[in-house]
């Protein structure tokens, strides 16, 4: 199977029903995308498919022929996406495990709604769990990156 990730076409030798998450992690070595639940409940595995945030843990890789996958490793070449910078300014992460998924969800939101309200941020980010409880800083960092605070 061919799979396009971060602009590179990969030849993947995995069972076609394998969720994208495990292809990224186990076959392509792109471990920035995390496993948290396997049921699209926590958002740790969030990536972009054709620019939209999706939960890669429930997305069979066979459904991705001809589509463009972006992972946290491909969000910006040098980690300078406005959200990544805002995350640093607000010292958002605690353990850090969920943060790639949080950033990917937030990046898709800002693509669609460049200047979201707090309520829109809350609604969009409700897909992503942070067990350490960094929600207030995530919210502030998104609004900051969007130029709203």
């Amino acid at each position, binding site marked *: 199977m061919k799979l396009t990730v971060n602009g590179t076409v990969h030849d993947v030798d995995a*069972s076609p029903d394998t969720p994208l998450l495990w292809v990224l992690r186990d076959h392509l070595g*792109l471990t920035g995308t995390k496993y*948290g639940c*396997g049921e699209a409940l926590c958002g740790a595995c969030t990536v972009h498919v054709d620019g939209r945030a999706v939960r890669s843990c429930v997305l069979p890789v066979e459904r991705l022929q001809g589509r463009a996958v972006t992972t946290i490793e491909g969000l910006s070449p040098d980690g300078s996406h406005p959200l990544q910078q805002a995350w640093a300014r607000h*010292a958002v992460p605690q353990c*850090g495990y969920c943060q790639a998924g949080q950033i990917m969800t937030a990046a898709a939101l800002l693509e669609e709604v460049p200047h979201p309200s707090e309520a829109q941020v809350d609604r969009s980010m409700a897909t992503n769990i942070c067990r*350490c409880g960094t929600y207030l800083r995530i919210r502030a960092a998104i609004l900051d990156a969007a130029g709203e605070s």
Partner: protein
Amino acid sequence: MNAPQLSRRGFLIGSVGTGALFALGAGPAHAAGKPFVPNVWVRLEPDGTLHLTCNRSEMGQGVRSSIPALLAEEMGADRARVRVVQAPGDPVYGDQNTDGSRSIRNQYEMLRRMAAVARTMLEHAGARQLRVPVGEVASVAHEVVHASSGRAVPFGQLAAAAAAAKVPHPDKVKLRSDIPPGGWDLPLVEVDEWTSGRAQFGADVQRPGMLTAVIVRPPVLGAALLEVDDGAARAVPGVHDVVTMPVPAPPYAFQPLGGVAVVARDTWTAKKASEKLRLRWSESPHDDATWAADLAQMREQVAQPGTPRRQRGDAENALKRAANVVEATYVVPHLAHAALEPPAAVAEVTATGCEVWINTQTPQRTRSLVASRLGLEEDAVRVNVTYLGAAFGRKSKPDYAVEAAHLSQAVGRPVRVQWLREDAMRQGYFHAASVQALSAGFDDEGALTAWRQRIASPTIGSTFDAARHELRDSELGQGLSDLPLAVPHVSFETHAVQERMRIGWMRSVYNINHAFAVQGFLDELAHHRGVPLPDFIKTVYGPPRVVSADELGVPLWNYGAPEGEHPIDIARYHRVIDAVRERSAFDAPPVEGRAKGFAVHRSFLTYVACVVEVSRAPGGGPKLERAWVVADPGRIVHRERVRAQLEGAVLFGASVALYGHLDYQGGRVRAGNFREYRLVRMHEAPRSIDVEVITDGHAPGGIGEPGVPPVAPAIANAWFALTRERVRELPFHPPHA
């Protein structure tokens, strides 16, 4: 995060006042151009790069920011030149067990002394080079500076000379006088590793030829494996092997639970094939266990006298004679750590030893357990500590490292064991449920004369001693035997409870149960008396004083800290109570449709008062509006990370209050994933969390855990203030209601 090899030559082990290990004596002979390594904490390269060791695990508490910061500040180093070295599991680094909120509180003095040794040696070398008396130089921003002449030598240029000198005894060096008790506002180091996806967690480690294992463990604790039909599993393309692992006998301690492992080329294949295993399990003594029945029995138990654990006066008689008696029973169910990263470990067994990569809180314990399982000397096992995708106590139980080592040995390849979410939810070590019956007696003048508290709760002790079923002193010492009570008649009593799962410590541990019951009940009593809760608590805890073990009537466990250094200080309770009351405008009329609740708790030697404001959530139950936290942890290091821990604690406590409930039926845990075991999400978080940290000269307390216990009772008390509905059984939203 791989540690450069540190030379072990010339290091002797001894003890500083704190009981920590340290390196002593002349360092290895260094030629010019070689680094300066006065002990295992500090390695200064000739180019000025400063490697500082972090001997504790980074699990979100910021220890890779705080330990190096303390070392660097004591050295007078430039933090921009610092590289953090994560210590592998090895006794030369002292106690590496990262739990009990101890990384700073137990190591503060020792770490400063280790850095001061390095600074002193650099200052001697610098003074010699500048030809000035050593008393006239100081270490500032990575240089030894002679202020009066304006001359300075960079640290790096002094590495060779310092390396050739004799290492002074850590107790003999002088500590800086300018280390502020309130620490520093410092950046979060390595934040870009987390935001770019580069940070390596336990499951991220990849080794050449590595296989992945998913394990089916006993569905009910105590069930033995009778029959394995792995034909269908083995037929799945990509499956390498199916390995049966022994099911252990209790006490379970840190033993793997055993079961059947599918070892495959990737996680998905292992998971799919594991679902095709046909396994027959024996009966277990817990086959008929249900939470509902166990809860009913615990409620019956606490209606009866139990084993006396803390007695003063005659509480029974005083309750009989009381003019008014108030009684209530509080319930906290079992809880799951639910760290977002499930347990995962990689092991690579070779002809000569084993190397492990793991998200562990306890690399030394991991090393000895792996060595013992494989029949190796500890020296033949290297345990590398990755980042931890949070832990909350689960990752101080390294059963999963032993699984990985066992499987790597069995299949002759590197193996990663991946716990699925369902495994973590159903077969972990769980926070103990607690049922507590409280009775208070007032005399006819309204004075509180009697306090009786009966507790039924499984003990963590059962995990290590199969005959133990009653709370240990250290468990009662988390908010009950150390509860200040200026009340003449006091009785705390416990009952034995049959545990159904492996019981383990989870962030804040028994403090969660005890603070919920005590602070909720105090709120009931305050309403009964018509007094604001903060005032009522001051009356019950008594006037500012040090509460001795004599006054308590029981030995003070005190989280292992000496009573003299960390007494129960009522004045410190008052400071956090008064500060949070003022900052939250607790006594002002509430905003329409909202109400505030209060709670205060001392745990891990830190005092925390909390106010939560709630309204009614559209779907029922409380919606958190705002929160205020005031903590007095004594001396701190990394001000910003301390605040982050206290903010996070509000959310952790909110999940306990609103959703936390791990129940079981037929001996099986019902929740499998976050659908049933819910955690608070962003839209449920308060709009703001105001944090104030009081830091004066007191010895450092803990910070990772003490923020959690007051949160759930503050929410329940706020809900009562808003609705007059008293919630005595958590959570607000049971999953199977």
